[in-house]
């Protein structure tokens, strides 16, 4: 039956996360952006909440309730608090979910307990590459077989790199397929360089140089099953789409509240059609984009290929998040341009969705 009401359980989770975002993320948003730092206590508190662990298999200490839809609901609420901190809080899933989905028994046993138990973020994922036409499906980073193992060459960027990272899942082209390799963070030939971007400044990001990085044969995610990881791209896009909806909603609500309170020409500016209709369009576009993200997540949960739905959702969100954040700056006028208020931060963050891929997963 076609329905749009979260389950009671989902509603409970959403309420909890909303509260968490309001009390723990939003108040830190500005300060973390200015200092370009993720407060480490935040990760500990998020770990307590079990946001990531809840999705991971019970046998390794997780909650065992995996749902992309629930993940999308959670992501939106976190990003409503702050995008950079949301990405940081969810970062442990970057290695944990692929290992849970595609890993060999040995890989799961070796990595999941630590990823679940550890409050710091022990694993990450590297997909995007530092070129204008970074292609999620066809990385130029290549893996070739050599002496029973693999050699990786290439470059990655936009790799979340929180304190404590011990392994990075490097996505590379192995022949025609998209393969993943679990690379220790101190591997020889791996060069880690911190990066800075216009937005998500609180999230530590690095560029990775891979210069003949050698890993053993069993470092390939899924080992001999040689899984094609294209599905990860869709999981990333659905997660990002949900985050983008959260960013847009934050911008919309700030703009709405400001417009009702700000006076000009003797009345709140929200009473002007130019402002009111802009806010109406924002609300409509946000709801439409959210439903696209939900549909893609729902499809993932049914175990179906969601390449198309995820592409549509992220396409829409890229536009909507940017337009809504830009609209919020516009509603705030001069105040939208100064860092005393949040709209400019939301605009910088919103623009990131144009190039983000697999910076989160559901």
């Amino acid at each position, binding site marked *: 039956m076609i*329905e*749009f009401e979260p389950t009671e359980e989902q509603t409970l989770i959403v309420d909890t996360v909303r509260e968490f975002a309001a009390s723990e993320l939003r108040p830190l948003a500005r300060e973390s952006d200015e200092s370009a730092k993720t407060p480490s206590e935040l990760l500990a508190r998020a770990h307590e909440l079990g946001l990531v662990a809840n999705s991971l298999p019970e046998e390794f200490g997780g909650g065992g309730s995996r749902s992309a839809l629930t993940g999308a609901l959670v992501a939106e609420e976190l990003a409503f608090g702050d995008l950079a901190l949301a990405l940081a809080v969810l970062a442990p899933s970057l290695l944990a979910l692929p290992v849970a989905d595609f890993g060999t028994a040995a890989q799961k046993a070796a990595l999941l307990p630590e990823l679940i138990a550890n409050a710091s973020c022990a694993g990450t994922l590297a997909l995007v590459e530092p070129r204008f036409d970074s292609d999620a499906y*066809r990385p130029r980073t290549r893996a070739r077989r050599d002496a029973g193992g693999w050699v990786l060459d290439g470059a990655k960027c936009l790799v979340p790199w929180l304190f404590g990272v011990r392994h990075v899942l490097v996505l590379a082209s192995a022949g025609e397929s998209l393969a993943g390799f679990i690379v220790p963070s101190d591997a020889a030939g791996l060069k880690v360089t911190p990066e800075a971007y216009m937005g998500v400044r609180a999230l530590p990001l690095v560029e990775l140089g891979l210069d003949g990085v050698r890993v053993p044969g069993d470092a390939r995610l899924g080992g001999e099953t040689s899984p094609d990881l294209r599905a990860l791209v869709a999981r990333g896009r659905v997660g990002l789409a949900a985050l983008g909806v959260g960013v847009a909603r934050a911008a919309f609500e700030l703009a709405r509240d400001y417009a009702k309170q700000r006076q000009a020409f003797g009345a709140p500016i929200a009473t002007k059609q130019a402002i009111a*209709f802009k806010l*109406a369009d924002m*609300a409509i576009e946000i709801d439409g984009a959210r439903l696209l993200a939900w549909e893609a997540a*729902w499809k993932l949960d049914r175990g179906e290929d969601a390449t198309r739905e995820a592409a*549509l959702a992220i*396409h*829409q969100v890229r536009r909507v998040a940017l337009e809504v954040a830009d609209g919020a700056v516009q509603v705030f006028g001069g105040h939208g341009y100064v860092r005393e208020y949040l709209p400019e931060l939301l605009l910088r963050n919103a623009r990131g969705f144009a190039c983000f891929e697999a910076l989160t997963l559901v």
Partner: protein
Amino acid sequence: MISFDPTDNSVQARAWYRRMALEQMRPISRKYDEQEHALPVEWVDYYWNHARAGAPGSATGPSDGFVQVCIQAEELCFGDAALYLRMPTAALGGSAVAATGTPEQRERFLRPFRESTHPIWGAMAITEANAGSDSAAIQTTARFDAATDEWLLNGTKIFCTAGEGASQVEGGFVVVWATIDKSLGRGGIKSFVVPAKTPGMRLVGLEKKLGIRASDTATLVFEDCRVPSGNLLGRPPKPKSESETPSEGTRGGDKGFKGAMATFDASRPIVAAMAVGVGRASLDFLIEELGRQGVALRFDAPPREVTALERDVIDMQAELQAARLLTWRAASMMTRGKPNNLEASMAKAKAGLAVTKITQKAVELLGPVGYSKKLLVEKWMRDAKINDIYEGTQQINQLIVARRILEYSSSQLR
């Protein structure tokens, strides 16, 4: 739970209506676009005889409720929106009777749509030359004649969809909005059922339109048109305190302007679904035609290779699906009995605009072929545009959404 999985009933209905769209409607689309104002007899007869009872389905199985109604509207307008509007049904007039009529009125006015031996139509007459979006400005009057216990209607209504059928074919009816007391503003506006062929109701013209040409958009004149008091929709209200004005207290139906406006909460998702149907006709055809021309559309093309065509089509698909899901959400709330005024207007605003653009874009992407009368793509562009205008223009729906999200009254945000 959140689910995008239609019930078996919906799946079955979708297939049933889709076949009707392709087999019964499409073959005569062009014909009745060209023969403006002609009655599409083959379609009217087919519908009356074979489709009136609705899609086959399990009465006991779960239903998507109002969402299924939207799916049906989408499929039929995927066929042809103009023919959809010409279907012999009670249409918006029926919605008004169903939503605001008494049980007796529902029985009296709607039974013929089940039992008549010939096709009949219902219609709703609201708009006037100087009262478009501003329904409260209605000038058509209803005066009570106590001597005969009748209402006398006087005024001219324009843009009355299905107004020819509803006013001219015995058994149908027109629901007419009129004011019983101009000094009461909105409070004075009531709806009256005027049966077809009632003396004093005259069909004076049919609009020549950009699109939906098979739909009869009528101008109706009412000159001392008499209807029995029982044709005022709704129950005469209980006697009220003396402070009430007599006209409001003793003559008005219990569901006046507000009740009538509330039927928009039901009709707007349907209009949105209709828009989505026209948009899908265009988009599906475009994709098929490009396929025939050897153009594959990829969702994972390398960034530097993505063609403008591919990106346009992805955009059209995303916009269409966003409009459809907003529509279904508004409909689903309706099924659950939740207030959906905001969501209905969101769906209508989004679908009207998105589908206007999608159908315009489809003409563009098909080049001279798209612009030509040889295909239906140009017709769908013309048909689609009405969805951005009727049942509240884009701007009126934006206004409603804005008021809701800002929690402003209609006097605070004008």
